[in-house]
């Protein structure tokens, strides 16, 4: 063996960068000190099967599925110097006992085997244990298709069970909360859900009762799993023990198309996956983004897609003739609006634009205001109670986009003067993009009745639409695409998971058509193309295109805003609870 000069040893080179050398399945690599072995294996593309481990939760090490073989250099005899091979690594002496990779961290010159007789034997054995008392009800289990028990069973299991005994009986189909059902026979007792409720939701209502092989997950009947984050337990349940009351038995997951997008219920812009079949949404789940929402999402946000029931939707543009609304063709509607506004004094006209519009739509709204020479602009601030986790007090999803596009931080403050203007008669015409004004205190149908012309856009029928002279139907966030900026200053992409009804336009389409009718003809037909113009116009967006913007978004504005849930996660990391 060559003796290399000590300065050139891999261990010293790695140590300088805060890294360690680790050999995974025969290949050396460098990973940061303190990395969990299971994560290091992930980096090496040597995925280790696991049930209880979840990167955002503490590691109890209870499932024993992630056992790997570990080795370290043998301790040199007293006085002897360690020897290095020609690459500068020490020989690895393999431990005959497997270790769990989820809770152990890497060390310099450590060797890990994720393959081989020992490791594969361990996995096969753990799988057999997990299945002996597990019901064989996959054909009627809602988890089928996304069940790690099924997946690992195929990879590591036996076709035949040696278990001849009677299985343990446990409660099935138990309502443990408003939105979650429990099947204890399917539970592998990994405790992910318990740890989530304890560590992340801070509402430790779940626990194990009984002991040994009779242990079962449950809640105390006085304190059910009704927390607003309860459905996250369904997401992280690796098997079919916890299922969503809303989603269960609705659709086999393999029939569903997944669209990565963002939530628009508040300023956090939680990353989501929308699961659809045809033009129907079946469920919304959080998509991991460590800079936005970690792996989680509140229940009310994920179920918010349900409010867009077809019978409540506005499905065609309409025009108020005397008291009643009559359908009107889009082209005709714009012509008629243009005529009415054209004959009015633009000083009597105001525009209210919602901060739930995408950046591209806001940009078009700005062009519209310029074209119509509207100087009175405002937006509606929506405050809600924050939950110290993922619900922000700002219920608008794109407040920062609004500020960027209009280069104004004060649009929210202008709303009052519009109200005064309407009352005094100074404002006669009002365009409202995406806001139901009657939900704001001090705004009602009577106030809106002072207007000569009210034009508004909505997805759902509401009192503002009712009071409008022109009511224009627009797409929901699930039918729309574009970009938004969350409270942390992160530019994120909204993608359409389903199509809007035939006669319904997105704000983007609506505004380009309108501007077209005003002879603004240079506008592209797709948000992606318009974004090129935005990125040239606004410094913060310089150099970004849809193609370069990943599904995880990109930080573009420094705001110092901290998502409470992420701050708490960071605290747990500092305490060593998670890595």
């Amino acid at each position: 063996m060559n003796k290399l000069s000590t300065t050139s040893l891999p261990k010293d080179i790695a140590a300088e960068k805060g890294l360690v050398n680790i050999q995974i399945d025969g290949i050396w690599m460098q990973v940061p000190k303190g990395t969990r072995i299971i994560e290091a294996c992930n980096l090496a593309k040597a995925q280790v099967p696991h049930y209880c481990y979840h990167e955002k939760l503490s590691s109890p090490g209870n499932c024993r599925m992630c056992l790997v073989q570990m080795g370290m250099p043998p301790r040199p005899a007293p006085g002897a110097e360690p020897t290095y091979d020609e690459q500068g690594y020490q020989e690895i002496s393999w431990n005959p006992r497997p270790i769990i990779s989820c809770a152990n961290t890497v060390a310099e010159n450590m060797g890990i085997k994720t393959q081989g007789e020992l490791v594969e034997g361990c996995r096969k054995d753990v799988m057999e244990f997990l299945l002996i008392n597990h019901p064989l009800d996959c054909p009627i289990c809602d988890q089928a298709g996304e069940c790690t028990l099924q997946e690992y069973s195929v990879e590591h299991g036996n076709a035949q069970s040696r278990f001849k005994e009677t299985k343990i009986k446990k409660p099935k189909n138990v309502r443990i909360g408003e939105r979650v059902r429990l099947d204890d026979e399917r539970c592998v007792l990994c405790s992910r859900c318990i740890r989530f409720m304890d560590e992340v939701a801070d509402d430790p209502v779940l626990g194990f009762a009984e002991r040994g092989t009779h242990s079962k997950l449950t809640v105390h009947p006085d304190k059910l799993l009704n927390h607003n984050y309860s459905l996250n337990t369904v997401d992280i349940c690796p098997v079919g023990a916890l299922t969503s009351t809303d989603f269960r038995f609705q659709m086999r997951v393999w029939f569903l198309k997944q669209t990565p997008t963002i939530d628009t219920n508040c300023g956090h812009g939680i990353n989501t996956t929308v699961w659809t079949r045809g033009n129907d949404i079946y469920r919304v789940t959080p998509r991991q983004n460590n800079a936005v929402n970690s792996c989680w999402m509140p229940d009310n946000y994920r179920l918010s897609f349900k409010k867009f029931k077809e019978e409540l939707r506005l499905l065609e543009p309409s025009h108020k003739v005397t008291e009643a609304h009559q359908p009107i063709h889009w082209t005709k509607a714009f012509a008629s609006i243009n005529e009415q506004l054209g004959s009015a004094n633009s000083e009597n006209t105001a525009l209210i634009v919602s901060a739930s519009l995408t950046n591209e739509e806001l940009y078009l709204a700005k062009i519209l205001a310029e074209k119509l020479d509207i100087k009175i602009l405002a937006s509606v601030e929506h405050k809600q109670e924050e939950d110290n986790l993922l619900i922000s007090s700002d219920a608008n999803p794109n407040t920062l986009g609004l500020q960027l596009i209009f280069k104004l931080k004060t649009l929210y403050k202008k709303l009052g003067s519009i109200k005064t203007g309407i009352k005094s008669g100074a404002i006669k015409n009002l365009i409202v993009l995406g806001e139901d004004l009657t939900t704001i205190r001090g705004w009602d149908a009577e106030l809106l009745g002072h207007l000569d012309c009210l034009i508004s856009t909505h997805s759902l029928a509401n009192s503002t639409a009712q009071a409008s002279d022109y009511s224009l139907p627009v797409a929901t966030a699930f039918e729309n695409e574009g970009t938004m900026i969350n409270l942390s200053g992160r530019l994120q992409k909204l993608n359409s998971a389903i199509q809007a009804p035939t006669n319904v336009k997105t704000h983007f389409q609506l505004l380009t058509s309108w501007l077209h009718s005003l002879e603004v003809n240079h506008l592209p037909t797709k948000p992606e193309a318009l974004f090129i113009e935005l990125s040239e116009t606004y410094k913060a967006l310089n150099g970004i295109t849809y193609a370069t913007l990943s599904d995880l978004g990109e930080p573009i504005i420094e705001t110092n805003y901290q998502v409470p849930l992420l701050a708490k996660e960071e605290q747990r990391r500092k305490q060593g609870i998670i890595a």
Partner: protein
Amino acid sequence: MDKSPTLDQQVNHPVSAGEKHFAPFAMTPELEARIDEAISHYPDQIRSSVLPILHLIQHQFGFISAQAITWISEKIEIEPMRILEVVSFYPGFHQSAPGKFHIRVCRTLSCAMAGSENLMAELSKITGIDRSACDSHHQPVAVSDCGTWSLEFAECLASCGTGPVCLVNDDFHEAVSPAKAQDLISQYSK
């Protein structure tokens, strides 16, 4: 929202003939003072007092009722589930009343070799208890119809040199051969 009957079973106690020998759960100032004293033994974390409080309550009321769990959870401000987890884990805590005299016979190896199984059979006969429905997990305790006696197999009582051994409430009895079962019962039936 309606609760699942399966959930209520977690805290429901099957009716037991032993109940008549115990007062129903009701906190008294004296007991609460003792509980406060127990809590003071854990200055660094109040949750540690769960086991001692359960012992104090069980000692007085015979078993841990649903009300007792609720009371403790309010007293030391922890989730009721955290208490249910503990109560249902430890065989030392009962969720329904044992008899006035609860007899635990050691089942483990040395006592079994010394005849504890026969001792249990003998005790069952004398007290008129049918243990045929018992199993070590779901129904470890069987109570006599009169509620005076209850029988349970315990795991190793750590007196293997003098088996078979048993505990009658807090009294320990060694070398209780099946022949001495009647004497044992007589001691308490006075």
